[in-house]
């Protein structure tokens, strides 16, 4: 363990606290913009603020590249790292891992259940094209994906799970009113238990109003909120499923 517990950013000397920043202010290019940027950085706690460049973005916007120094430090000994449950593996690695250990692709059935007609979340996780430049599950050799689309009754989803021998169920709930999504999610979980399918499956829910905590409360294995990328879901599925199957 290092004796030095307090750390600051490093430029070219220990503890110089040098930081580079770039940002845009909605202020017309000119002396006022420069002073505003300087003040803003000082408010952030920087001193010796240097505006390295300021450029006119037109329409009353100005872009800045700024250097500043800070006395702020963090005490390493005060930080507890919560071990991430999911390791971020690249797609190729995931494909390799699954084919090597499971010796077949993981079968994923996805749907938006109940009255919700929105497949935006579902498609961005499942479709080849993916989301934010992150490819969807269809792109992986590790997954065989059945995307049932929108407004699927839970009973139909369960039927499909049985028919294709799914390993994973992915449900999405985007637009809901008066918490009707909770009702749908509960109904699905009850059906899976009633059909004796729950234990074999990894059941995941996603949507803007979904948190991991809520998902666990409802008996799901995981919940993913807005902005989740397909690779996060892929990593979770593979690592949890292999664990579940004892592989």
């Amino acid at each position: 363990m290092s004796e030095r517990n307090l750390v600051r950013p490093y430029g070219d000397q220990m503890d110089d606290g040098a930081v580079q920043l770039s940002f845009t202010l909605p202020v017309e290019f000119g002396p006022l913009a420069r002073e505003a940027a300087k003040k803003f950085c000082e408010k952030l706690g920087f001193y010796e603020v240097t505006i390295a460049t300021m450029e006119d973005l037109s329409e009353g916007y100005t872009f800045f590249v700024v250097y500043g120094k800070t006395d702020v430090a963090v005490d390493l000994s005060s930080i507890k790292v919560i071990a991430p449950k999911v390791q971020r593996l690249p797609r190729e690695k995931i494909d390799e891992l699954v084919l090597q250990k499971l010796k077949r692709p993981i079968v994923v059935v996805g749907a938006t259940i109940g009255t919700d007609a929105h497949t935006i979340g579902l498609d961005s996780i499942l479709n080849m094209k993916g989301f934010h430049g992150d490819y969807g599950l269809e792109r992986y050799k590790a997954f065989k994906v059945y995307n049932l689309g929108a407004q699927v009754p839970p009973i139909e989803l369960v039927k499909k799970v049985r028919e294709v021998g799914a390993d994973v169920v992915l449900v999405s709930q985007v637009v809901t009113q008066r918490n009707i999504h909770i009702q749908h999610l509960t109904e699905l979980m009850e059906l899976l238990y009633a059909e004796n399918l729950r234990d074999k499956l990894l059941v995941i829910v996603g949507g803007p109003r979904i948190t991991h905590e809520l998902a666990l409360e409802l008996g799901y294995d995981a919940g993913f909120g807005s902005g989740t990328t397909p690779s996060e879901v892929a990593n979770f599925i593979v690592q949890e499923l292999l664990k579940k199957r004892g592989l």
Partner: protein
Amino acid sequence: MGRPTIRLDSKLVEYARSLAKKITDDVQKIIDEHSTVSTERATLRLLGVDGVVGEDRIPLVNVVLDKLKEWNMLDQGAFKPVVNAAIVLDKDVQQICEAIADGLDLRTLPQPKRQVYETFSKKLVEEALARIKRKSEERDALLQQLGDPPKPYKYLIVATGNIYEDVVQARAAVFQGADIIAVIRSTAQSLLDYVPYGATTEGYGGTYATQENFRIMRQALDEAARKVGRYIRQVNYASGLCMPEIAVMAALEGLDILLNDAMYGILFRDINMLRTFTDQYISRLICAYANITINTGEDNYLTTADAIEKAHTVTASQLINEQFALKAGLKPQLMGLGHAFEINPNVEDSLLYEIAHAMLSRELFPDCPVKYMPPTRYMTGNIFKGYAMNTLFNLVSSMTGQSIQLLGILTEAIHTPYMHDRYLALVNANYVFSAARHLGDEILFKPDGFIEKRANEVLRKAVELLEHISDVGLFSAIEQGIFADIKRSREGGKGLEGVFKKSEAYENPIRSALEHELGVRR
């Protein structure tokens, strides 16, 4: 600005085209037997039908189509029953459609005399085509007046979800040097079997394509164009389930470029292949008549498959897209075929490969305004490395004479562009394009050197692939996963229920008139 040349095996080039022609001839036969709900809705829109119905704001054209389907009248097309009703009830087409929404049942109406119908429809068709023509001439006049910027055109994307915010970002981009502004669509709009209505201020990862949004952006870009004294092109997406309708709206609002690929929706959006092939044909007829440049999506293949190993799939798809486009009357000058700078930057001589592939596209399609896409696949959170990659991308584009340059954004892998990300992309492109303005004129590639050999090798592999596709047919080839390693079944995908076989009684005088005008009447 000139560009260097390479020598391609001319016999092979000719053979490749003949294969692509045969492949698309076979598909076109099937296309000609079918129509789609989106084709019929586009037809009604061309007749001036507009508006939405009820609290759910369902587009009137959708309501009418649903009724025709319910009455089993769809296989004759939407034109005839609606126009008949207009004649018999002495109303205009919009009024008839509104009456249908209010409960008018077309099954109970008498038929007008054939001659009356023909005279009346001729007038409607002429009016519809004249509307498109007028708009396209208006665009042309503005282009002449303001002047065309030098190529490669600098193409930037805005995607705030709010059309009014998009306008602010777009204007800023124009003042900083952009020549083309694309408004990215809201995630999954391509899967909606209707076009949303009116100005929109909320979207997911983009802004809904609506006719009103088109109009708002067009007006803003024209104003900005007049200020900067150069013509600014507007782009949207005629892809997904509503290709023909988006093409109509774009034609009516004077857009310049539409993303429009014969196969993209099938592969990347899991839209049914018969639906996509049929829709792309009609949408391209409209683009051809409205003088709208299409941009195809070959770049996407390289985001899913290795850019060196699968380079030939880009070439094969370009050739197929070209033949489909020719069938719809599009001239090469309107075919913005796609490719991309997506080779792994860690590969030694990746730049030579990129130049070879870029030269192949130029040499195969010398008259097409090729659309060159930036690195995305190997962009990471290291924005500084990304900026360096974009510099090389700009250099290759400039020296090989590409036409439409979708500028690389340094934060590509992180978030949709911030205002200054776009600015930095323009700083990069402006610098490189100016610094290397006449570089292409000075370059002679070594005969039988790496670049020439590589280009011919890719072409040869493309020919082998086209031979295979020609043997099994395009439908089966897609089922086998030939493109982008993606398999799609003939009966699968979204939107098949919106495809129907035309009956003997089918009529679509607008489509016929477009085919006639474009000289593609079969």
